[in-house]
């Protein structure tokens, strides 16, 4: 028997995807006994929002973990303010965490939330516009006092003036109930109030039949040093759960069954952690010690934090005095034979440009990871954007071709970190890996790879002379290339291969300083040919295609999820649409030109003003059209579909 859906107190509004949920509001339940039986739904989008001091990221994160353990597919979108301590209760201080959980394969954090948890008036004001009409709102009604309403500019109480008429609203005195739950503990009122996010979490866990144990275990471990905090949080969590169970207010519980997934072991992973683990895996697969030179910057710092915890893998992390020193130290380590990385965001890449150029000139392997954020300048430090592509491709002086690749999902960051290292080591070149704030902080379930199946990316250091001088004596020529035009990597400590490298132009072969015009032309061509040749060493572009498609969506980076969802929805409504997602941006896959030329419409959604599209037009003379968004947020599938319809007339 399939699960029955009965919607009572919680309305899920019109389905986002046709298969989003089955059943409708008509399936009301009245029977109390039945009521407690969890109702199967397919997917839900929940948005936790509150003041940045309210712990909403943690609440969302814990709910996500519980859902991941329940085997749901999920995609998250954490959004937090740039200021660590924005004034309490203001719009600027609102922190939100959206999670889309589902019993089937999903790719976006959901276009519109079905449920909004608002811990204060500011959260309600800032987030209400996103909520699906008819959606559910759960309010911490205790926070709706005059001062808080005023702080965010509500002239009248939205709970009573009709603002919320289109929604199902649950007013829950969370602060008061939390305080009551912990009365037996010896905690100050202010401290006790801080557990209210666990009350909210308990309530939501009840609604979506998530067990509390994983959260309790986590609380016990996390706050092990302070038993009172453990007790307060656990009591609040349980109180929230009990509140759902015993009050009439919440008529129903929902269950989202586990998503059909390949067999295997799964974990829930964010992009930054996946990147860090990919770096560690690359070190193992290359059999090289890892060196990371980094300077803290949002949203990249967590990679540094994560790597710093794993020194037992032979990982050396170095928090440098600035980004120039960070990349410089990495280059020094690469010269010494380490697998060297530098991690940063756009402003940092701007500072690193000269050193990346030096690495290109000296032809040493190094990986630069740019976790992109909103720009220009400080821009939107905590928000996502994909506007560094041009800087990655061209942001250095001189003719300095540099491979650029991009991850498309949180877990894909793991694979792309290894791929960046593979290219860097094999071709002796700096490689830029682009991720972004959305991938970095967003999470998804990831089927853990078997380390034995990871590629071997090890390379040999040079150990012997590779040439002879005029007298027939063996010599070492540091710029004598192999068949893929890579030069030997001879590290200090190797007897007989002593040599000097630098940024001055080098004579072909010997590497001695050369100002010869012909040689400079030759070396420029050789450096370019080496990078161009990487095209033969990367996967061909794959088309996700259906019969009769005249339109192809071309994406790169984190837009993957939204583009896949848009493609599926258009196909479901009868419009055949194809799509290609690029991971290798320099060089591009060799078959891409032929692919693009075969469509009537080529549409390129990008979270920038149109950067890849310029490359595609220039390389392949295709009349591509862009869908562009620069708001610090990922695309919703709906936005892409709407734009396609407007631009091409192709109707979904």
């Amino acid at each position, binding site marked *: 028997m399939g699960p029955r859906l009965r919607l009572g107190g919680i309305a899920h509004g019109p389905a986002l995807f046709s298969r989003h949920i089955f059943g409708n509001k008509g399936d009301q339940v009245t029977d109390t006994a039945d009521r407690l039986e969890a109702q199967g739904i397919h997917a839900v989008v929940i948005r936790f929002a509150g003041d940045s001091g309210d712990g909403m990221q943690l609440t969302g994160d814990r709910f996500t*973990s519980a859902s*991941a*353990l329940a*085997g749901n597919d999920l995609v998250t979108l954490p959004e937090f303010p740039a200021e660590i301590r924005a004034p309490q209760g203001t719009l600027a201080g609102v922190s939100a965490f959206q999670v889309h959980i589902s019993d089937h394969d999903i790719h976006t954090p959901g276009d519109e939330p079905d449920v909004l948890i608002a811990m204060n008036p500011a959260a309600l004001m800032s987030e209400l516009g996103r909520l699906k009409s008819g959606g559910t709102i759960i309010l911490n009604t205790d926070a709706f006092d005059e001062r808080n309403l005023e702080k965010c500019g509500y002239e009248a109480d939205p709970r009573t003036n009709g603002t919320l008429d289109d929604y199902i609203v649950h007013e829950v005195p969370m602060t008061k109930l939390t305080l009551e739950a912990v009365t037996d503990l010896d905690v100050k009122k202010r401290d006790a109030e801080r557990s209210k996010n666990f009350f909210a979490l308990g309530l939501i866990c009840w609604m979506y039949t998530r067990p509390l144990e*994983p959260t309790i275990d986590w609380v016990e471990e996390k706050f092990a040093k302070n038993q009172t905090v453990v007790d307060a949080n656990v009591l609040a969590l349980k109180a929230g759960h009990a509140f759902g169970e015993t009050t009439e207010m919440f008529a129903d519980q929902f269950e989202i069954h586990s998503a059909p*997934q390949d*067999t*295997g*072991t*799964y*974990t*829930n992973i964010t992009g930054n952690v996946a990147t860090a*683990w990919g770096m*560690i*895996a690359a070190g*193992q697969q290359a059999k090289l*010690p890892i*060196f990371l030179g980094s300077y803290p910057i949002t949203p990249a710092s967590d990679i540094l934090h994560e790597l710093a915890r*794993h*020194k*037992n*893998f032979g*990982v*050396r992390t*170095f928090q*440098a*005095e600035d980004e*120039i*020193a960070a990349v*410089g*130290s*990495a280059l*020094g*380590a*690469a*010269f*010494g*034979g*380490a697998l*060297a990385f530098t991690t940063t965001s756009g402003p940092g890449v701007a500072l690193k440009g*000269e050193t990346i150029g030096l690495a290109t000139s*000296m032809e040493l392997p190094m990986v630069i990871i740019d976790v992109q954020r909103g720009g220009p300048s400080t821009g939107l430090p905590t928000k996502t954007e994909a506007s560094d592509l041009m800087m990655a491709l061209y942001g250095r002086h001189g003719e300095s071709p540099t491979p650029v690749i991009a991850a498309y999902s949180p877990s894909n960051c793991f694979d792309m970190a290894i791929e960046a290292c593979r290219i860097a080591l094999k071709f002796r070149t700096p490689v830029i890996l682009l991720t972004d704030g959305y991938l970095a902080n967003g999470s998804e379930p990831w*089927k*853990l790879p078997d*380390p034995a199946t990871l590629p071997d990316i090890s390379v040999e250091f040079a150990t012997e002379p590779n040439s002879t001088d005029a007298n027939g004596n063996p010599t070492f020529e540091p710029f004598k290339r192999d068949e893929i035009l890579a030069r030997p990597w001879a590290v*200090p*400590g*190797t*007897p*007989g*291969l*002593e*040599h*000097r*490298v*630098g*940024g*001055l132009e080098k004579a072909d072969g010997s590497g*001695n*300083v050369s100002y010869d015009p012909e040689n400079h032309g030759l070396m420029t061509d050789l450096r370019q040919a080496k990078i161009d040749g990487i095209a033969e060493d990367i996967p061909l572009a794959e088309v996700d295609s259906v019969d009769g498609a005249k339109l192809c969506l071309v994406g790169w980076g984190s837009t993957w999820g939204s583009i896949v969802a848009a493609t599926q929805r258009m196909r479901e409504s009868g419009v055949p649409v194809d799509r290609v997602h690029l991971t290798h941006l320099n060089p591009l896959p060799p078959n891409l030109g032929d692919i693009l030329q075969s469509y009537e419409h080529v549409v390129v959604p990008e979270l920038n003003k149109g950067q890849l599209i310029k490359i595609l037009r220039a390389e392949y003379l295709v009349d591509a059209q862009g869908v562009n968004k620069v708001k610090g947020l990922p695309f919703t599938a709906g936005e892409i579909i709407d734009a396609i319809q407007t631009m091409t007339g192709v109707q979904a």
Partner: protein
Amino acid sequence: MTDVSLDPTQRAYWTSDQDVRWCPGCGDYGILAAMQFLYAELAEDPATEVTKENTVFVSGIGCAARFPYYMDTYGMHSIHGRAPAIATGLAVARPDLDIWVVGGDGDMLSIGGNHLMHALRRNVNLKILLFNNQIYGLTKGQYSPTSEVGKVTKSTPMGSIDAPFNPLSVAIGAGASFVARTHDLDRKHMMATFKAAHAHKGASLIEIYQNCNVFNDGAFDAINKRAARAEMMIDLVDGEPIIFGAEDQRGVMMVDGVAKIVEVADVGLDAIAVHDAKNPNSAVAFTIAQLANDRQSPTPFGVFRQVESPEYAEAVNNQLLAANEQQGPGDLAALLHSGATWDVA
């Protein structure tokens, strides 16, 4: 005929096959020769374990920074100002190497001032040579952060306005564990100073007064020309009273914590400060460094400060060892499973 290029105790062994391209008469030649002779000398003592393959010179950009090309060791001629940062990465990744950093006053104190300061405070095992010619040589003669106030150059036709750095004060202020000054006209002094730095564990900063005979000729004539030396150079010898002059008639005395030049006859030898490079309090070294705040005053040379303090690369690697002990050797499969996991059957 024996091939001297095969004998580590010969200068030729340490000399690369590249033509040296400094201007004829440039002070850099003398510094290069001192380094090559030093390595030949170090090679005579097996305990130093010096080898070509384990020696690395990392430089920035400038005339001085061409240095690595002329040593037959490993070397990197990097970018302007960044050599201390690049060398820090190399030293951390490869604590087994013997690493020198070379740069000019512009390289180290203008564009690279930040990196110099941090390499010193971290106490990375690097021997940093600051070729101070008080000018930008390579870019043809603009004033530098060590040029005297009023310096007329192409970029300062009415004279420079900004006060110069005293490089040793900067280094001592940054907490450097080894600080010394030498000059390009005295090979023996350079060799002795470089040798002391070579034996030191941690970061060393050696300022070398270097004549740029094209753009700032004679900058140090008043101090290190043979005829001036006795009266103008103060030789710092550890454990000895700081006296100088043709008759050892002058000395340095600490007056209210400030180093002052006095006549020995006026104060008596007992009142003269005894040089103590190992003094944990850097204030004394600082005030002695301040004696050289203009080029008309008697100027101290030698090792100002040499103290023991934890070396950075070693500390980094100790953390790796400790992590290995506490967490066990890295196991990728275990790492991947370290979060909450679930199985799909």
